């Protein structure tokens, strides 16, 4: 049933199929916005990296991650889902799997297990996942700089060469922790899940802002111009107001007069990523329209390339499948929400420049 198996590893692990167009097209610019310091594989050996975040808790990040991965696998891709909700992980439950014995904690903290052994089979063919692992193990680490996550990053970027993974899907936790933003800013396509309610929208905007901040930081670190990055962040914080004309996008344009080279690089770094908005639990047309409104606002205010990926309607099937302890799209494959998920998956593939394989 499951193909990502270390014992079946081929001697010549040439990745099959084309790499994502988006990934190879923006490879150099994308590289400049990373916070991880690790040698990268060639562009064609790079898996497409998706991250699902959203700031607020309970907006459906893990549900979207698990089911989007299953839908992408139905389109013919090999997907690796990583539970990065460290300390509060429950991705395995969305796959209908009990708390696994091997987890990310074994790989990163105790270092007893190689990465290939923490990759677990999911009930869907083409999807593998890495569980977050024991809560108590993470307690001491979460406050520290995210150097302890570097082996994970190295394993993820090598996963296409080693395990023929096409898409790495990172399920992030709530909040804007340092490691959360590290991985979100490293994603080619960062998905933000929003509920049609003010609190969630507010947090989503905070998340966008933190993404911008993180990219400025990372670029400053790459160019060894941390002071410039600091200055720009201070100036942005002082200049931004509550009007569209004083949003971060227009502030950055003004700052381009002072720091032309840095802002130009920043724009390239920003354009090498795409943000996607998924509106979850929509109940009426106004909720659905919220996505396109937010897309417009993000482009105008933050200047980030944003796309409305799709909406997921409010559906009792979600709760039922969780209670049945089965994956939503395999428990209710004909539900409306499963169809909406496949639309969202198709939209994501389109942005990444990947063709459906079947």
């Amino acid at each position, binding site marked *: 049933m499951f193909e990502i198996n270390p014992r079946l590893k081929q001697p010549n692990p040439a990745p099959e199929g084309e790499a994502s*167009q*988006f990934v190879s*097209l*923006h490879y150099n610019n994308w590289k400049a916005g990373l916070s991880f310091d690790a040698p990268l594989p060639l562009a064609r050996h790079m898996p497409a990296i998706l991250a699902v975040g959203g700031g607020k808790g309970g907006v459906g990040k893990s549900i979207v991650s698990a089911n989007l991965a299953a839908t992408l696998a139905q389109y013919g891709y090999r997907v690796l889902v990583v539970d990065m909700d460290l300390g509060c992980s429950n991705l395995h439950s969305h796959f209908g799997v009990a708390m696994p014995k091997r987890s990310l904690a074994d790989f990163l903290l105790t270092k007893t297990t190689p990465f290939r052994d923490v990759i677990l089979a999911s009930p869907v063919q083409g999807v593998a996942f890495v569980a977050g692992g024991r809560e108590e193990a993470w307690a001491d680490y979460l406050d520290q700089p995210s150097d302890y996550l570097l082996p994970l990053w190295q394993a993820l970027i090598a996963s296409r060469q080693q395990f023929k993974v096409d898409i790495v899907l990172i399920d992030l936790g709530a909040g804007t922790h340092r490691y959360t933003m590290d991985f979100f800013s490293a994603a080619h396509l960062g998905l933000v899940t929003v509920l*049609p*309610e*003010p609190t969630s*929208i*507010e947090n989503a*905007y905070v998340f966008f802002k933190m993404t911008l901040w993180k990219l400025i930081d990372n670029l400053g670190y790459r160019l060894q111009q941390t002071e410039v990055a600091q200055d720009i962040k201070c100036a942005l914080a002082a200049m931004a107001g*509550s*009007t*569209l004309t004083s*949003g971060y*996008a227009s502030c950055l*344009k003004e700052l381009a007069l002072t720091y032309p080279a840095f802002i130009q690089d920043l*724009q390239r770094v920003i*354009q090498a990523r*795409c943000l996607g908005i998924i509106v979850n639990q929509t109940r009426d047309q*106004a909720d659905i*329209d*919220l996505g*396109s*409104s*937010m897309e*417009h*606002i993000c*482009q*105008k*205010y933050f*200047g*980030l*390339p*944003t*796309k409305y990926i799709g909406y997921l309607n409010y559906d009792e099937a979600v709760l039922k499948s969780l209670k049945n302890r089965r994956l939503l799209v395999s428990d209710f494959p004909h539900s409306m929400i499963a169809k909406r998920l496949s639309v969202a998956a198709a939209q994501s593939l389109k942005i990444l*420049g990947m063709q459906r394989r079947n």
Partner: protein
Amino acid sequence: MNEQLGSDFKPSKLQGTHRTGSGPTYYEVLDVATYSTRLQIREAYIRLRSTYSTGSHALYSLVSEEEARDALDKIEEAYRVLDDESQRKEYDIAIGLVKEPPARPQGAEFFSGSGEGMRTSRRGGGLVNPGLHEPYGEDPMHQTEAWSEEHSESRSHMRRPVTFGKIKKAASRASDPEVLAAMQAIISKPQSFDGKGLTQLREIVGIPQSEIQERTKISIEYIKGMENNDFQKLPSLVYVRGFLKIYLQYLGLTDTVTLIEAYTEKFNHWRETTRPNSY
């Protein structure tokens, strides 16, 4: 893909800013390209209106309510101008998008005009060549006046997207006082109103059958049947009355009842004489 994703670097936006020098153009306000169709502009307008309306949550915690109201006013203003073909043309000239109105020789105008008509009717899925079904096609009034004098208006009208459902706008010439006066002459004699009167009204407004068919979605066969008094080709009375109503409304008439009644009388007379036993 870059261009598609990048919100800041749309070439159209940059062009607009360079040319005006002050403030965003209406195209930038609505976030559309300068070559957008009317339908695209309308879609953008609806999307933005819902974004900035007071009930919208999308602005929460980012943009103040006053700012949203200002933005909404600007959007309304931009849409009002860009939705109107003539105002949009003037605006394009004002911001330097179009240098001057395209002036072409009379003959070329005629051909381009008829070409437009063909294209429109093909889009509507009906006629390929409007002249083919034009019973009064050789009428000099129709050919010269209607096309040469009114070419700009009728062409701009042709470019409008097809609206489905109810007829919202009448033919472009229908508000002309001269046309109204000429139409009034026919309307004032409802007793003699029949298919011929219908044809005359259409010719006064100066539009071909194909346009009626395109805009009202009445089958061309029925339009011809109604105009030629071929009652045997028409469907039952209730449909004919409905067709007449949207036909006349498209010509710009508001009071259609008397004319429909007059036509109904003719229709009933024909039915009683040819098929007296039928209902």
